[in-house]
């Protein structure tokens, strides 16, 4: 069940990720202190997707991974710091 509104042109399953031409990382695989452009968000929950949107976390925006603390990822989006859990980090595609 997938109603995410951001993924019209994005590969959705892990097999697609492997076979697609474009190298797509998940935020959980990103390198620290490097800027990335968000290519899509897929948490499978429209409410969360909308919320992330209002923070500025959506397709086309820059996101930077500041550090990884235990299982949380500290990111910088639009000049603010957030700590997100690993499942959310895996949902942000770069």
């Amino acid at each position, binding site marked *: *069940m997938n109603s995410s*509104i*951001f993924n019209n042109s994005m590969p959705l399953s892990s097999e697609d990720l492997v076979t697609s031409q474009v190298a797509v990382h998940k935020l959980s695989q990103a390198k620290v*202190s490097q*800027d990335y452009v968000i290519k899509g968000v897929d*948490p*499978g*929950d*429209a*409410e*969360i997707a*909308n*919320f*992330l*949107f*209002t*923070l*500025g976390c*959506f397709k*086309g*925006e*820059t996101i*930077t991974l*500041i*550090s990884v*603390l*235990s*299982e*949380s990822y*500290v990111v*910088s*989006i*639009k*000049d*603010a*710091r*957030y*700590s*997100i*859990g690993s*499942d*959310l980090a895996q949902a942000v595609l770069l």
Partner: protein
Amino acid sequence: MIIVIVIINKRTFILKIALAGNPNSGKSTLFNALTGKTARVGNWAGVTVNKKEGLVKTTFNKTDAEIIVVDLPGAYSMSPFSSEEAITRDFVKTEKPEVILNIVDATNLSRSLFFTTQLLELNIPVVVALNKSDLTKSKNTVIDTQTLSKLLGCPVVETTSTKSSKNGLDSLLSTAVELTGKQQSAPFVSDGIDLSNAKLVEDSDIKRFEFVKNIVENVEQRQVKNNRHTMQDTVDRVIANKWLGLPVFALIMWSVFSISQTHLGPILADLLVGWIDAFYGMVEGLLGSEVSPVLGALLLDGIIGGVGAVVGFLPLIMVLFFLLALLEDCGYMARVAVIMDRFFKHLGLSGKSIIPMVIGTGCAIPGIMATRTIQNERQRRTTAMLTPFMPCGAKLPVIALFAGVFFNDAAWVGTSMYFMGIAIITFGAWVVVRITGEKNARSFFIMELPEYRIPSIKLALVSTLSRAKSFIIKAGTIILLCNAVVQVMQTFNWQFEVVAEGSAGTSILASVASPFALVLIPLGFGVWQLAAAAITGFIAKENVVGTLAVVYGISNFIDTEELALISGGSDVASIMGLSSVAALSYLIFNLFTPPCFAALGAMNSEMEDKKWLWAGIAFQFGMGYVVAFTAYQAGTLITTGTLGQGFIYGLAVTMMLIGTLLYFMYKGESVAQQKLTTYNA
């Protein structure tokens, strides 16, 4: 809490101003500065959980009108995600304030202005307060407020709500007043799109962000880039570290309790108790021998004694509140939530649940109210139900009393109670997940990490004093009343004759409490005096101490000479007639049964569901009973080799409770199976 101001004076016109803005933008600090109130401020997004109103102080209000300011919960946008954002949206749309004061965090324009442009569309005059201007200056970020004002189409005033003077507030308020009755044009209009069409909303929002980005580029010049590592990030790496985080947190909490309970607290407490003693002596002297002994006892032991026993603990509780306030203000609590998420995840909760629980160590009521920021309904309700298991400030006197009287003030008594609370919370969360059948559900953790700041001593003091005030009021009313009633009920029998010495068992109180005492026999304290104290504990936990003081005629639990928390401990112990094991069991019972009525009221408003409320109360009562039972029976077995009284009955009750729990968990299992299949469909 909603503070409603009744206006009875010659001012005829009332101007209503709404304070709206992102979480953590300094709204509440501004509210406090403007109104002189002490709305709770904490440095983690989501502290204002209810709408608060206040009258603007006359120092700022130079008009003939009364100006009411309403502090709304922080919101990132108008589309409701959490219930706080819904409150804001509905308020602004239905109550039509005359002016909206939009507090914008100057250190984060690009996110904040999203909400601003939405507010500008409401056709209510908006004034933007560019707050935290001191921080932008220290970071060498320059914001061109003139251009910003032009691009937004509304006045922009720089403010620093944490400063007490030259903070821009005068100018802010006068600008707001000037705008009354004017129109507001919106620089960005979403063209009345259909809000139910997600795609259209998304497109419109993207355009809105573009618009905002444009403005920010024109208006802001940064030196310090936010997406680079800063000093604070380095601090975070230590504080929220995978291995260090928890010990650091444990150390900090330990110091908070140590300072309030062992060092600073008792010193202040002794001062206070000294005064109470002196007062007692003075009244005793005044009464002389002509006053009837009944009245004398009522006044001295019932009122001064009972209330004094409780009030003597006030300094310890206040120091605790003060330290917790400092902790919240500096921004550390958000990091604690990050640390705790790892553990809470396994219980079906998120790290955010730790915050209500830490607040709950001061008082469960604000703790329960703080659960409002947890988006997931089940998690919110579970946390609200479990927060009271953390011993609150009102329970401290009870712990101190028993630790002092029966265990020679050993530190392990208090500490073990907190750990037991944690254990019960863990168990409770685990059980709830299984009962609701959501053990396979996912939920997401996201927490804004605000910048660390030096906590304001002044703010912490102010908030502590307001707590102290409400405690004293509570002591002077509810606790006083309870103690007086208990004293009366104890002194008279049903024929309203004074009960003779030695036949206390014929008093009203004894006959009322005895039935309950029967139920408590398996727990080791089936005595009517203790049952009565436990019952009054439901009204306010401090009453347990107060009632015991009245019922046993002990009026002073704090010894000023030895800085110890008992006066003739062994005397008290023999009067109560409890073994140490039974005493421990009694302590456990009082700590882990449902909290005071006020906290239950808070639970009721957070649960929003009677089923959950009653289930929560039943769970709390069940836990208190079972744990106390186990402690007493097991303890008696270990120390004396035989089981305590009433073992069979207690066992029967326990089995029944456990059986009910298992039944619900089993039902939940099938719900979970169902949900799993719908997920995979």
